[in-house]
């Protein structure tokens, strides 16, 4: 219990550092280019336009209001991809600092995931624009969105911690993970709909083993369909998030004292 209180105290001691790191990431991202923040909106919009044009022809069966369908899944997936990618490198990149001064190492990982989350929330404007442009109805269920984002945020923190510590010991994890991410994207119903065209085993695999399915289904439910998400995906989402966090924190905690020898 003392240890927990101590940890919470250090966390608060460094809260300004976390804020500054998050602010720095956003500042660097938006600085220098004239469009700055606009890029954050434009980027998903343009990708959405391209994908909509390509896939509305490619996919045999038309998905109604494809732009909103696509965006409501893709934004969450992109957040997961960016945040875990950045989190993975967070310890190694800060090596010169960590070699010199004692700072809780998770701060860097945590702040990376957080800055990606903030970036994603800011770019939600893109989704709103598309919804207005396509005349999509705003359902009351959309109010649940913060909770879905929170679930995914917790999940990404966990995965980020796990990858960050692994990357310290094995630098080629980066390459392996980028392959995993590509495969992961195709196994997640982002650009397509998981319907009866797919074999049964694929349904089972995606619904049973792909965490992203839980978050994307929830977001689709509340934005695109206007349904309240079913208990299975809603509570499942929370469960997976905390499970990932537990694994991440445990693995990070276990090896963090050895980091300095390898960076």
């Amino acid at each position, binding site marked *: 219990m003392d240890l927990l209180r101590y940890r919470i105290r250090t966390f608060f001691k*460094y809260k300004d550092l976390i804020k500054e790191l998050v602010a*720095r990431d956003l500042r660097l991202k938006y600085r220098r280019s004239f469009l700055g923040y606009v890029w954050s909106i434009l980027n998903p919009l343009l990708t959405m336009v391209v994908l909509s044009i390509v896939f509305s022809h490619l996919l045999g069966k038309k998905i109604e209001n494809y732009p909103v369908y696509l965006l409501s899944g893709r934004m969450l997936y992109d957040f997961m991809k960016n945040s875990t990618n950045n989190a993975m490198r967070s310890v190694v*990149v800060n090596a*010169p600092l960590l070699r010199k001064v004692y700072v809780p190492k998770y701060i860097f990982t945590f702040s990376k995931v957080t800055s990606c989350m903030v970036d994603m929330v800011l770019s939600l404007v893109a989704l709103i624009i598309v919804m207005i442009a396509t005349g999509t109805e705003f359902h009351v269920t959309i109010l649940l969105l913060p909770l879905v984002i929170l679930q995914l945020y917790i999940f990404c923190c966990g995965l980020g911690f796990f990858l960050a510590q692994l990357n310290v010991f094995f630098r080629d994890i980066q390459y392996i993970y980028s392959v995993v991410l590509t495969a992961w994207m195709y196994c997640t119903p982002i650009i397509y709909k998981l319907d009866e065209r797919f074999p049964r085993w694929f349904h089972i695999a995606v619904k049973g083993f792909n965490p992203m399915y839980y978050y994307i289904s929830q977001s689709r439910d509340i934005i695109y369909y206007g349904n309240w998400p079913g208990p299975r995906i809603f509570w499942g989402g929370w469960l997976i998030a905390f499970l990932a966090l537990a694994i991440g924190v445990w693995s990070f905690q276990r090896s963090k004292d050895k980091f300095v020898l390898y960076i």
Partner: protein
Amino acid sequence: MGNYAIEVENVKIRFNLASERVDNLKEYTIKLVKHELMFQEFLALQDISFKIKKGESWGFVGPNGSGKSTLLKTISGILQPYEGSVKVDGRIAPLIELGAGVDPNLTARENIYLNGLVLGHSREFMEKHFDEIVEFSNLEKFLDSPIKNFSSGMKARLGFAVATVVNPDILVVDEVLEVGDMKFRRKCNERMQQMLAGGTTLLYVSHNIESVQTLCDNAIWLDGGKIRMMGSSQEVCEAYREEQEREITARREERRAKLRAAGKKYDYLIVGAGLYGAVAAKELTRRGRRCLVIDKRSHIAGNIYTENVDGIQVHKYGAHIFHTSNEKVWKYINKVADFNNYINSPVASYKDELYNLPFNMNTFYKLWGLKTPKEVQEKIAAQIAELGITEPKNLEEQALSLVGPDVYEKLIKGYTEKQWGRDCKDLPSFIIRRLPLRFTYNNNYFNDRYQGIPIGGYTGIVEKLLENVDVMLDTDFFEYCKEHSDMFKKVIYTGMIDEYFDFCYGHLEYRTVRFETERIEEANYQGNAVVNYTEREVPYTRIIEHKHFEPEEEQRNPKDYTIISREYSTEWKPGIDPYYPVNDEKNSVLYEKYRALAQQEKNVIFGGRLGSYRYYDMDKVIEAACETVAKELNIRPWI
């Protein structure tokens, strides 16, 4: 704890490291399957116990790898002891070079905040003390420029200012201050003295023993991870210094004794193991003369010395690119080295815009968007005509009358001023006689027929040249002569000619360069081996990224880090490595006087860059050395 700030008891630090560094999964798996994964226990520290009272100042000395930094890291909590305990009472402030591990695009202002927060201060606290920090560091002007333009000295300055903004209980200083200039070091020392008086405990690591002696009351001498000696800093430092000297002398004596025991006498003593000395030694040896090569430095190859740092050949004394039009020289050097096809095409950076060098159509296109040589020639002619300079009075006017204001302002002015440490208006016009402009799209800096970098670095060349030659390092010529003048008949001297004559007419002047070399955890820092910074505001003249000299090595063996050197032009003072002779009238006259003296020395031949006080490219060095040997042995010159 009470009185003690730090109590270290029986600390042992054990690293369980793989015998070879395995940092990727692929190798790890292969080694695991083949049962080749060997772990080696390495005791970085053992039996370390001491107590430091509050307000004391302690220095840590010892050779590289003796565990000084490890010990400080353990005290700071970065490393956990394997056995024993470390108790610390109070807040530790380590001195971190500003910008460490931080995005180089952030400005100094942002870095100050970040650095303070990393040290555990609150934002509010930093805002309150911001002005104080800036004032101490004396860098107000640069607050909003990105940290990547800062020299290590400037970064250390800011780092020191942040770390000492309040008197920390314990200040940890690890080698960081070596980089700043004298004035700033003095300022830091004063501040540290002040803090000591105010009750701060200081832990100080430095290779500079004098600074340990002046700053610290106590010292610990570490050797091989153990405490060798502990006590007052005067005594410990004295003992450590004596030991260091003893070791160097012992090494030297051992070598000399060996040579003497062999009963060897030499025909030639060659002073300086650089390229000139090595070529001369090889050619003389090949023709049956016995040579002994000595060098002051503790490595061979003089200024073309390259050192393998983590698999990258680092040009320790500045970029060397071999180029020649002399086919014989090219064939000669290719017998002792394999060359790659590196072509020097530097890039100039001016206010975030990049321009190709040497001045060619690519440069002009970037400057004006003009595409044909005719347009460019007209443009330049018009610009020059507009100025109406008939008789250039200084370098600025000279350059303007050759290339016009655009090229001059962006690509020549700042660079030249940094090089000479003076305004272009105050420089004589003869420094620039000619500024070649190329009206083709060709970025190859040299016009020579052959060009390249020896694969595996230059040191290998000199090693090969000296294969069958006796070499003694760490040996000063004048000292050696005192005792061993009977060991040789003649001398080939490649050191400073004025030093040989004891500066009897005064010092010849040199321009010199200083390098700050840094490892960066990035695969590719600037995408080119050489980038010149032509703005006055950037303190360095250029950045060398060493791995790009050997692209084939990088392809075979990609690395996710790189090594860069920032190059600063500095005023030369007696005692620092001289680089380029200053060929102005005053120095030329002075050199002629020394040359007259040299001609009277019948048994000494003067040669090389310092011995003949002139700038030599490497190919010219080889030509000159061969010529000297030919003349000396009275044989037909072969190069």
